[in-house]
C-alpha cells in the first residue's frame, strides 16, 4: 500500500512516567500510541501469502511482549539456534528447573522463518520457535505434541527499523502461547545470546478503546459475535467486573455515523464513540463507566486484554491487528 494512503500519525506515547517530568508538548508527549489510519484487509503485497501458514495464530490466546532489537541474529543460522536452544533447555532441566517431573521427556525445538508474516519488504521475516514434546512412550511415527510456541514478528515496523544500526535485527513484537516456564527459559536464552530484553506489553484503556472503535468499524460479511467490553471497578471491597455487550450491527451503525473519512480514524471520533456507549449505559444503569477501567475488548476480529493478551479470530484482518500491536511494541521499547 502506498504510504500516502495512511492518515497522519498521532503523537507517540511515552514509555515510562515516574521518572522526571518529560512532559514536553511536542516530542514524547504522553498520549495515544496508535496511528490514526483505520484497519483494512490484508494489503496487496500480502495477497499472495498463504493464509494457511499463518492460520496457526488464530483462535489461540497469545501473550504479548515487546523485544528490543536482536544483536547479530542471522536468519540463515536457524537450525544452529534450534540445536543450541534445545541444549540449553536440556541443561536447565538438569539444573532442576524442569517443568515436568516423572517421565523423562525430550523437548524438541524447531526454529523457522515465516516470510508471510510481515507488512512490507523492509520488515524482517517473522521467526517462529516451537517446542514440542517427544515422549519415548509414543510411537515412532506419531506427531510430537506442541507445548509452546513463540513468534517474533514485525508488521510495518519501519519506524524502528529505520533508526537502528545494521547489526541489529528488528522484531519488536513477541507472541507466546504455552506455559510461562518455557517462555522464561526461551526468553533468557535469547537475552543471553542476542543482548535483547523482553518486557510484558500491557495495553492501556486508552489503546483498548481505540481498538474497540477500529475493530467495530471493520467491514465484515457476516457479523457473528457481539462487541463485548469488560470494565473493572476500582477501589471496592470486593472486585467488581462489568461486562457490556453490544450487538455488532448496532455498534457498526453507530461507528459509521461518527467516522467522517473512511480509512482514517481520529482520537475525537474514538472519544465520541466511547462516550456514546458510556452515556447509553448510564441512562439505563446510572453507572459512570468512564470512572472505571476498561480491561478487555472482544469483537469478531480479535479480543484484547489489558494485561497484554490477545486472541486473533479473523485471518482477513490478522495483518492489521499485528500492525497495531507492532506499533504498541515499538512505543513500549522507546
Amino acid at each position: 500500500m502506498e504510504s500516502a494512503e495512511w492518515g497522519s500519525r498521532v503523537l507517540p506515547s511515552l514509555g515510562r512516567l515516574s521518572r522526571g517530568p518529560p512532559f514536553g508538548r511536542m516530542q514524547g508527549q504522553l498520549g495515544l500510541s496508535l496511528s490514526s489510519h483505520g484497519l483494512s484487509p490484508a494489503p496487496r503485497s500480502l495477497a499472495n501469502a498463504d493464509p494457511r501458514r499463518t492460520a496457526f495464530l488464530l483462535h489461540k490466546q497469545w501473550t504479548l511482549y515487546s523485544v528490543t532489537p536482536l544483536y547479530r541474529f542471522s536468519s540463515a543460522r536457524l537450525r544452529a539456534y534450534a540445536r543450541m536452544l534445545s541444549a540449553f533447555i536440556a541443561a536447565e532441566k538438569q539444573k532442576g528447573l524442569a517443568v515436568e517431573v516423572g517421565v523423562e521427556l525430550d523437548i524438541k525445538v524447531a526454529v523457522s522463518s515465516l516470510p508471510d508474516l510481515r507488512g512490507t519488504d523492509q520488515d524482517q521475516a517473522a521467526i517462529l520457535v516451537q517446542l514440542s514434546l517427544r515422549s519415548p512412550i509414543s510411537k515412532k511415527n506419531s506427531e510430537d505434541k506442541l507445548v509452546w510456541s513463540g513468534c517474533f514478528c514485525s508488521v510495518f515496523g519501519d519506524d524502528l527499523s529505520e533508526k537502528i544500526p545494521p547489526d541489529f535485527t528488528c522484531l519488536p513484537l513477541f507472541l507466546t502461547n504455552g506455559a510461562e516456564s518455557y517462555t522464561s527459559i526461551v526468553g533468557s536464552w535469547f537475552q543471553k545470546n542476542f543482548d535483547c530484553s523482553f518486557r510484558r506489553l500491557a495495553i492501556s484503556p486508552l489503546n483498548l478503546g481505540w481498538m474497540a472503535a477500529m475493530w467495530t468499524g471493520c467491514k465484515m460479511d457476516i457479523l457473528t459475535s457481539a462487541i463485548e467490553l469488560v470494565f473493572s471497578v476500582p477501589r471496592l471491597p470486593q472486585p467488581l467486573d462489568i461486562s457490556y455487550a453490544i450487538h455488532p450491527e448496532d455498534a457498526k451503525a453507530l461507528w459509521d455515523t461518527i467516522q467522517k473519512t473512511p480509512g482514517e480514524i481520529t482520537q475525537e471520533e474514538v472519544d465520541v464513540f466511547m462516550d456514546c456507549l458510556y452515556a447509553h449505559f448510564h441512562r439505563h444503569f446510572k453507572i459512570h463507566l468512564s470512572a472505571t477501567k476498561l480491561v478487555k475488548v472482544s469483537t469478531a476480529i480479535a479480543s484484547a486484554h489489558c494485561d497484554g493478551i490477545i486472541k486473533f479470530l479473523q485471518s482477513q484482518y490478522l495483518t492489521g491487528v499485528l500492525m497495531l500491536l507492532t506499533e504498541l511494541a515499538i512505543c513500549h521499547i522507546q
Partner: protein
Amino acid sequence: MSVVQPFDKLPIPNSAACLLVGSDEGLQQRLAEALLLEKKSFKISIHLATSLPLPSERDHLRPRIDLIVFMIDIKSKYSLENVEASLAYVDASFFLGKVCFLVTGVGRVNSCSVEISAVWKLGEAYCSPVLFCELELEGIRVATAQRLLRMLQICAGHITGVSALSFGLLMRNSDDN
C-alpha cells in the same frame, strides 16, 4: 451566588484558602493532609469539593478562595468530564493565575484512560498551568504539596512583588520552551 468569585470577600490577615475540586475524595484527602503537614508561616484552610457549584447555604462561612486546584485522575475519564463541567462555575477573573490543573496518577501509564493532549488543550484554553504528579508516592506528594503551597502564597498576595498573574505567565512561558 453559585459562581466562585475571587474578590467578593475581604481577605483575612495572614491566611490563605485553597479549594481542591476533583471526583476522587481519597486523593484529595491525601493531598490536603500533605499540604497541612508542610511548614508555613501563615494560616491555611483547605476546602474539598467533588464538583462545582458549591452549595450556597454555607457561602457566608467560607473565606475568600485564593487558589483553585482542579484534580484530574489520569485513570478516570469521568474525572476529566467532572472538571470540565465544574469550570463553568468559576468566575472568569479567577483564570488570571489563580487556577491550576493537577493531573494525578501519572505513574501508571498502563492504566491511562485520559488523553494528555486533551488536558494540555484544557490548560491552554483556560490559560492555567498544568502540573503532573503521582500522589501515591510520598516523595512526589510532598513535592507537589510544596509547589501548591508556594502558588497559594503568591495567589494570596503574601509575596511582595509577585502577583498571581505574573507568576501564571511565568509558568506558561516556561512550559512553551
